[in-house]
C-alpha cells in the first residue's frame, strides 16, 4: 500500500500541474501560546518565528540579518540604535507595517506582564522619528542590542487593540493567545492547542520564498518512541528531537535522514556555595565540603565525560570547559581544556581537603528536561562512588525540580543552560553574578556563587563597545570561573533532527525550526 502511494507520488511529481506540497512535523512540546510576548520559551519563539518577524532575524548560520528593518546604526557615542524600517510590508490581515507598530510592540513586549521584558532592560526610551525610522535609546552603550532582539516580534497595533489584546494575558488568555497576525512567511489557518496547528504560506510576504510548501501541520507527540514510529512509518515528515540512541539506526535507514548539530545548551553540575552544611549527608552533617574548591575540582576529575559521551550520548555530543559552547560569541579558545578524568587526582584532592574517606550527599537531577538526563546522572553517581563520595541520586520531573532548587534542597545539582543571546555574557549574568534582585542578575544562580571581581566585570562587559577589550574581560571572567570551579561544565547537548529523505531543510544552532527553508522533493 505504501509502495503504491510512493509510486503515485513519483507519478504525480512528473505531472506538470502545480501540486500541493504538504509537510507535517512533530515536536515534543506544543507551543503553549500564539502570543509572541507572553512566554519567553524556545517552543513558542521557535514556532512563532515562522509567523511573526522582528526588526532583525537570524540567518542559517545565526548571523543577524535585516528583516522588518533594512538597516541599523549606533546613535552618537553609544546612546542607542537607529533602525530604518522596510517599506511596503503588510500583516497577514492586510494592514500596513509602520513605526507605530514597532512602538506598540515595544510597549507590549516590555510591559510588566510580558515575559520578554528582560530584553528591554537596557532600553530607556523608544522614539518614532518618522513612519519608517525608530530610535532605541539605551541607558549605557550596548553593542549587542540588535542581535539581542532578534526574537522580539512585531505585532500590528490596530489588530491587537481591536481584539482586546493590547497586552499579553498569561492567566486568562486573550485573542492573541489563539490567533496570529504577523508579517512572516506563513500564517496560522487552524490552531487546536495540544493537537495541531496548521500553517499556509502568506502570499504577500515581502521576501522571496525559498520553500515549496503549500500547507504545513505541526503535531505535538510526547512519547519519544511514538514520535520515532511516526517518522519511520512516514506519518510525519520531520521530528525534533530524535532520541539520541536511535541516531545510528536511523542513519542506516534510507527513508530517513538524521541532521545533527551542536546545540547551544551546556550541561553542568552546580554546588551549594553558600550552604553551611550538607543537607542530605548521613555522616558529614557539620560542614559543607563543596564550599572547598578542592572538592569541586575532585568532582570534575572524577567524572569521565568522554565515557558518558561515548556510551550514553553515543558520540553525539562535545565536551565543554566553560559555560558556553565554542559556537557562541565570547567563547575562550585558550581555556578549552576540560579537567582530565583522573580518579587518583580526585582522591588526592579529597584527602587534601580533609575527606580521605569521602562523604555522602544528595544529588538532584531532572528526568525529563535534558537529553538522557537521568542516565547521565546515574553514570555520574557511579563515577563519584568510585572515588569515594557517594551520592544519593534523586531524579525528578522538571515541574518538581525548580521549586526544589529554589528551596535549596540539594547538595549538588544538574543544570543545562542555553544562552538566549548566543553570547558569553548571558550565563555570567544569570549563573555567575551574585544574586541581586534589584540589578536583575544571578536569578538562576541557585548555589549563590559570589565573586567580587566577576560582579565588577559583568556591567563592564555589558557596555563595552570595543570587541577586543570586551573579549579580554570575558577571558578574565571565564578564567576565574574555571579556577574556582564555580560550576563543572561537562558537555554541549547535541541537536538531533530526523527527517524523511525527500525533505531538504536547514538546522539552525538555536534549535528553531524555520519552515521557510524547507523543500519537499
Amino acid at each position, binding site marked *: 500500500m505504501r509502495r503504491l502511494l510512493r509510486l503515485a507520488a513519483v507519478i504525480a511529481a512528473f505531472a506538470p500541474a502545480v501540486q500541493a506540497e504538504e509537510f507535517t512535523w512533530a515536536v515534543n512540546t506544543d507551543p503553549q501560546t500564539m502570543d509572541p510576548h507572553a512566554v519567553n520559551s524556545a517552543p513558542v519563539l521557535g514556532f512563532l518565528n515562522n509567523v511573526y518577524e522582528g526588526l532583525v532575524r537570524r540567518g542559517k548560520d545565526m548571523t543577524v540579518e535585516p528583516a522588518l528593518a533594512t538597516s541599523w546604526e549606533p546613535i552618537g557615542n553609544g546612546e542607542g540604535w537607529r533602525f530604518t524600517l522596510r517599506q511596503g510590508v503588510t500583516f497577514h490581515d492586510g494592514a500596513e507595517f509602520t513605526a507605530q507598530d514597532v512602538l506598540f510592540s515595544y510597549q507590549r513586549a516590555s510591559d510588566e506582564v510580558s515575559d520578554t521584558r528582560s530584553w528591554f532592560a537596557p532600553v530607556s526610551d523608544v522614539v518614532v522619528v518618522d513612519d519608517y525610522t525608530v530610535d532605541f535609546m539605551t541607558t549605557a552603550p550596548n553593542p549587542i542590542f540588535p542581535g539581542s532582539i532578534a526574537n522580539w516580534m512585531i505585532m500590528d497595533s490596530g489588530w491587537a487593540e481591536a481584539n482586546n489584546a493590547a497586552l499579553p494575558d498569561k492567566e486568562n488568555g486573550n485573542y492573541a493567545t489563539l490567533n496570529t497576525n504577523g508579517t512572516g512567511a506563513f500564517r496560522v489557518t487552524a490552531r487546536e492547542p495540544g493537537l495541531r496547528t496548521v500553517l499556509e504560506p502568506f502570499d504577500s510576504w515581502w521576501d522571496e520564498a525559498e520553500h515549496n510548501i503549500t500547507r504545513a501541520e505541526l503535531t505535538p507527540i510526547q512519547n519519544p518512541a511514538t514520535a520515532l514510529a511516526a517518522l519511520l512509518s512516514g506519518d510525519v515528515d520531520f521530528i525534533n528531537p530524535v532520541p539520541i540512541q536511535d541516531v545510528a539506526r536511523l542513519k542506516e535507514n534510507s527513508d530517513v535522514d538524521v541532521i545533527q548539530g551542536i546545540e547551544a545548551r551546556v550541561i553542568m553540575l552546580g554546588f551549594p556555595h553558600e550552604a553551611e552544611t550538607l543537607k*542530605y549527608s548521613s555522616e558529614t552533617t557539620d560542614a559543607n565540603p563543596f564550599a572547598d574548591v578542592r572538592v569541586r575540582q575532585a568532582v570534575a576529575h572524577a567524572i569521565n565525560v568522554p565515557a558518558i559521551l561515548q556510551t550514553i550520548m553515543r558520540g553525539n555530543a562535545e565536551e565543554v570547559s566553560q559555560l558556553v559552547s565554542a559556537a557562541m560569541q565570547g567563547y575562550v579558545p585558550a581555556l578549552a581544556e576540560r579537567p582530565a578524568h583522573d580518579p587518583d587526582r580526585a582522591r588526592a584532592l579529597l584527602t587534601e581537603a580533609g575527606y580521605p574517606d569521602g562523604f555522602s550527599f544528595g544529588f538532584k537531577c531532572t528526568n525529563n528536561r535534558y537529553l538522557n538526563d537521568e542516565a547521565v546522572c546515574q553514570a555520574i553517581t557511579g563515577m563519584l562512588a568510585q572515588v569515594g563520595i557517594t551520592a544519593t541520586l534523586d531524579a525528578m520531573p522538571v515541574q518538581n525540580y525548580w521549586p526544589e532548587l529554589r528551596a535549596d534542597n540539594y547538595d549538588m545539582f544538574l543544570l543545562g543552560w542555553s544562552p538566549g543571546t548566543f553570547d558569553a555574557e548571558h550565563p555570567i549574568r544569570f549563573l555567575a553574578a551574585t544574586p541581586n534582585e534589584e540589578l536583575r542578575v544571578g536569578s538562576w544562580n541557585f548555589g549563590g556563587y559570589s565573586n567580587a571581581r566577576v560582579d565588577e566585570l559583568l556591567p563592564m562587559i555589558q557596555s563595552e563597545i570595543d570587541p577586543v577589550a570586551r573579549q579580554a574581560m570575558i577571558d578574565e571572567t571565564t578564567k576565574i570561573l574555571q579556577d574556582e570551579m564555580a560550576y563543572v561544565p561537562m558537555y554541549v547537548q547535541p541537536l538531533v533532527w530526523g527527517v524523511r529523505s525527500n525533505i531538504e531543510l536547514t538546522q539552525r544552532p538555536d534549535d528553531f525550526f524555520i519552515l521557510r527553508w524547507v523543500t519537499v522533493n
Partner: protein
Amino acid sequence: MSDFPIPVKPKSRFRLALESDLFYTFKRSPVAMVSAAVVLVLVLAAVFAPLIAPTNPFNPASLNLMNGFTPPMAPNAFTGDSFLLGTDDQGRDVFSTILYGMRISLFVGVAAVFFAMVFGITLGLISGYVGGWTETIIMRTADVQLTFPSILVAMLIFGVAKGVTPVEYRDQMAIWVLILAIGLSDWVQFARVVRGATLVEKNKEYVQAARLIGRKPGAIMLRHILPNVLSPVLVIATISLALAIIAEATLSFLGVGAPPTQPSLGTLIRIGQGFLFSGEWWILLFPAATLLVLALSVNLLGDWLRDALNPRLR
C-alpha cells in the same frame, strides 16, 4: 483423596476440606503445576539474587560505563567483558539487574496486595456486618478511592513522603510509596466482595445462632464470616498480585516508579522501551519476558484457584 496423608495436628473441618480438595485438583492440573513451579523458581531466584547474580547492579561504584550496551554473549568492544544477557545503558549486567529487579517487583506486589487485602477485608467485614453510617462512610470512601487514578494517588503519596523523609532514605521510600499507592487503589475490590458476602452470611442461621449465644461481633466476623468469604478473597488476591506487579511497571512508565539506581522489572522495561528502535533489543526483551512469565504464571495459578475453589464447576 485417600492417598493424601491425614494431618497430625487437628484442624478445622473447613481447612481440611480446602487443603485436600486443592491438592487433589492441583495434582490433576498440569497447567497449575507448571505455573506453580515457574513461580517458585522465580521467587527463589529473586530471594537468592545476591548469591546467584554475577554482579551487584545496585552498587554504583562497581559499574563501568564503558561496558554499556554490550550485546548478550558477546565481548564488549572497549573492555572485552562478556555478559550472559548483555548490559544496559549504564553497563549493568542485564541478568543480575533482572534478578535484583524481580526482587523489588515481587516485594512491591506481595506487600501491596497484602496491604490491600488486610485493609479491604477489615473494612468490608465491618461495613457489611455493622451497617448503618459506618457502612455508608466506608463504601462512599471506596467511591472516592475509585475516582482517583492510581497515578495521582502515587504522586500525592510521593509528594507528602518527599516532604518528610530525608533524601538518603528516599530510594527505600519510593518502594513503600509504590506499595501504598498500589495497595490503596486495590483495597476497594476486596472490601466490596467481603461486604457483599458478609451481607448474605450475616442473616444465615448459624450467624444468628452465634449472636444469640452471646458471641462478640469481632469474634463472629473473624471466626464465622471470614472463613466463608475467604475463597473469593484468595482468588482476587492472586489475580491482584499479577496486576500489582504490572501496575508498578505502568507507574514507572508514567514517571513515578522505583528509582533508576535500584530498578524494578517495571523500571527496567520503562528504560528498555527507549531502546526498542535503536537495536539494543536485549535491554527490553529480557526484563519484559521475565515480567510476562511471572505475571502469566501467577494469573494461571489464580485461574486454576478460581475453578478449584468453586466446587460447582468441577
